């Protein structure tokens, strides 16, 4: 079906979330909807799915005007949403999860007709090459398969228009490729697909047409053949963005971080790091690549003193820190940008100013004889907000209400404001928009050029290849390869990540 949104406007108190946005997609076409966080993508899709009512503008399906009062009506009109966060019951099996809320029933009391439902799930799965076992339990399925269950759910409800919200955020490179195959198959069979993302490569690869949103407006609509990454980034951000990480050759100095045959257990007492040895020198960036869950998290926590070490040794700047406390490690000049900034890096219910002193609150000048020095704290926050371009209404704003990019800037500003010898950054750009990614990378390179040793852990191949002077690949708790920047290619690193030769 042909979908058209015309002049959609939606205002929230203080914010014009959608300002006369018009998009359209033909039957069987893939529309890429590109925009930074906060550009209005989610609001627009919530309008399409009947969650919000637009202030003005209209939704046309096959030229016919439709008004959705609630999500049910949108579903009945053939619109299926696959959210970024899956809406699946973990203890259900695939058939149950897919049919939930749209169960086929049989008999006088309306018992669940599992047989019919299962048959239809199998049919759909085969028709669109989704390759889902109908009897598997959701909680046992990998993330990529769960996403296909979500797609099945939409198809089961006879959706002709499928909206995918940031579908690749949780996928490995290989799973993303698979997803693109599925999207092409759906489109070929006549489904209209709206693909929401902030990743430039993805829209260029899979979309038939790309609409870019910026600050609630359509910044431009282009065809992939006419577009480049640079053009799209410019439309998204409103200025030219450096997509490549600009850096000179590394000039490695002395070894700062030295890990010897390290063994670390995870929370369930399973061995997660199995004999890792790695040296990182001053003035170089080592990128640690790997699919999530191969021991990177445990390795990082062990280095910064948050997790006890089973066997092996860690030296930072020549000192044995194998059994050191987090505070001792940080006092040695280690900056740590944790993987999950909202969980580990920030205190959302405290103000921006309070978050800047999270690691130095007990030191002069912030603490004087046990009481906090409000003036010094405010000055510190004002400087950091300025230096790191943190967009916040004030330093007394709760950190939790900032956007992801600005939250990360707060973390990075805090960690880099002490004398730094070693940077440990885990997924430093996850979930950030192009502009913030550029910014964070630049700061990392600055630290390197100032003589710090930098370890960046990332699951994003693009990031690993762009910033790493050397690339180490982790798989199953071991380092399965260390490549010099020049010999690290997309194919080689991707293959090592997946366990190939």
């Amino acid at each position, binding site marked *: 079906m042909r979908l058209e949104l015309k002049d959609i406007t939606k205002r*929230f*108190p*203080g*914010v014009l*979330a959608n300002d006369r946005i018009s998009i359209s997609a033909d039957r069987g076409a893939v529309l890429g909807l590109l925009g*930074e*966080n*906060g*550009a*209005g993508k*989610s*609001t627009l899709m*919530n309008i399409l799915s009947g*969650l*919000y009512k637009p202030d003005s503008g209209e939704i046309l399906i096959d030229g016919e005007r439709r008004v959705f009062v609630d999500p049910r009506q949108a579903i009945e009109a053939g619109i299926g949403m696959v959210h970024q966060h899956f809406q699946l019951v973990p203890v259900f099996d695939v058939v149950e999860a897919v049919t939930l809320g749209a169960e086929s029933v049989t008999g006088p009391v309306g018992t669940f007709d599992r047989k019919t439902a299962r048959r239809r799930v199998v049919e759909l799965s085969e028709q669109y090459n989704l390759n889902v076992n109908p009897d598997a339990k959701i909680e046992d399925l990998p993330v990529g398969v769960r996403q296909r269950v979500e797609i099945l759910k939409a198809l089961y409800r006879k959706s002709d228009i499928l909206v995918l919200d940031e579908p690749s955020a949780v996928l490995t490179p290989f799973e993303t490729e698979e997803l693109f195959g599925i999207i092409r198959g759906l489109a070929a069979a006549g489904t209209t697909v709206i693909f929401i993302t902030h990743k430039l490569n993805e829209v260029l690869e899979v979309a038939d047409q790309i609409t870019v949103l910026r600050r609630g407006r359509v910044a431009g609509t282009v065809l992939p053949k006419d577009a480049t990454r640079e053009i799209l980034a410019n439309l998204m951000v409103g200025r030219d963005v450096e997509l490549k990480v600009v850096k000179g050759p590394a000039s490695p100095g002395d070894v700062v971080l030295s890990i010897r045959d390290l063994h670390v257990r995870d929370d369930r007492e399973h061995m997660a790091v199995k004999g890792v040895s790695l040296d990182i020198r001053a003035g170089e960036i080592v990128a640690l690549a790997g699919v999530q869950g191969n021991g990177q998290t445990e390795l990082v926590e062990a280095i*910064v003193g*948050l997790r006890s070490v089973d066997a092996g040794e860690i030296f930072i700047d020549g000192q044995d820190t194998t059994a050191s*406390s*987090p*505070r001792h490690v*940080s006092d040695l000049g280690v900056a*740590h940008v*944790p993987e999950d900034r909202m*969980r*580990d*890096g*920030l*205190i*959302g*219910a*405290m103000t921006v100013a*309070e978050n800047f*002193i*999270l*690691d130095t*609150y*007990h030191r002069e000048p*912030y*603490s004087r004889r*046990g*009481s*906090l020095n*409000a003036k010094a704290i405010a000055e510190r926050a004002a400087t950091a907000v300025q230096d790191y371009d943190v*967009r*916040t*209404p004030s330093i007394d*704003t709760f950190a939790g*209400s*900032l*956007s992801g*990019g*600005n939250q990360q800037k707060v973390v990075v500003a805090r960690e880099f404001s002490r004398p730094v010898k070693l940077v440990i950054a885990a997924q430093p750009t996850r979930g950030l*928009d192009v502009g913030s990614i550029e910014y964070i990378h630049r700061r990392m390179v600055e630290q390197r050029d100032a003589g710090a040793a930098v370890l960046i852990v990332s699951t994003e191949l693009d990031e690993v290849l762009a910033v790493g002077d050397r690339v180490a690949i982790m798989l199953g708790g071991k380092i399965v390869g260390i490549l010099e920047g020049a010999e690290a290619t997309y194919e080689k690193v991707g293959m090592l990540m997946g366990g190939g030769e």
Partner: protein
Amino acid sequence: MRRVGRALRPAVIPILAVITAFIVGSFFILITDFDNLSKLGKDPVGAITGALGTIGTAYYSMLIGALGDPAKLGAAISNPTPRAMAAAIRPITETLVASTPLIFAGLATAISFRSGVFNIGVEGQFVLGAFGATVAAILLKDQPMPLILLVSTIAGILTGAAWGWIPGFLKARTGAHEVITTIMLNYVAAQIVLFGLRSDLLRKEGSSEPISKVLSDFVRIPLIFNLPAIRLHWGFVVALLMAVVVSWFLFKTTKGYELRAAGFNLNAARYAGMSAGGAIVLAMTLSGALAGLGGSMEVLGTVPQMSNDISSGYGFNAIALALLAGNRPAGIVAASLLFGALRTGGGLMQVKTGIPLDLLFFIQALVIMFVAAPGLIRVLYRFDRTRGPGAEKVVEGGAA
């Protein structure tokens, strides 16, 4: 003005919750007013005006009972004898007396909640603090009074602190959940007091009941007004002072910052190099110390002697207070005054209208329920629309 407005903002929901609770409470009065209800068939107008009259009398007598009778106040001004003055201020001073232990217990609870530990053991720490103060006072009873007062207060603080330290230490060391351990320690505290009060050293001469010697014979916190039958003592001022101290500690000191950080997000606190165990132990110990101080003030100032009834559920009321106050020290004081006023005002209401005291617990429970469900209040009074669905997300994006 804007500063005042900002400071009052968090009070909007609790205030509306209180008003709503009283309105709902009046329906309760209405449907239990059988005298008037039975007349509904014969004389509907009379029945309705009669019922409304009951509601009015009930709430007015509650107000007078809690704050004072304007007539008596007038009499005291025109003829300022000690007797008349005492009669005029007795209700309000009784309200303050009733709110004193609530303030201590509320602050104790709030400081633990702020630090992310759920000290359900304030009751036990309060009782044991009072017991510690009693033991010290009786041991020192031949010493000069200021000395007894000082030492027994310190003894009360230390026993309360110790009783808070135990579950804190257990949690930090072994991960034992403080909710379980503090509830159990409440029982242990009650039994310790019962056991102790049966000893000859503490028990009142000639009594077979577990009540202590009459402390007020040899030690008593000085009264604020020297008027007949006015019980208000300096313990109330100490309570207000503690609210200021707790506020200063939480928001202006390094340790307070540490506790709040650990309370909001223990992970981030650990990542920033703070000691999670240290924060837990400190929070529990301070919480217990405040409860213990409250217990000492109660036994040394308000009641004449120690018994197991020293706390009429203050530690548990404190949980509701902390919720109502959003764990803010100033809010704790305000909420304690409200609860204290309900307690003292209810007596007169019962006398004047025959409405049982249970109405007050009904209203208290409604207040807490409405505070716990702020969405309900927002819908009822149709305000704060910025919090509609999705608004949060948009604001987040807008800041980018």
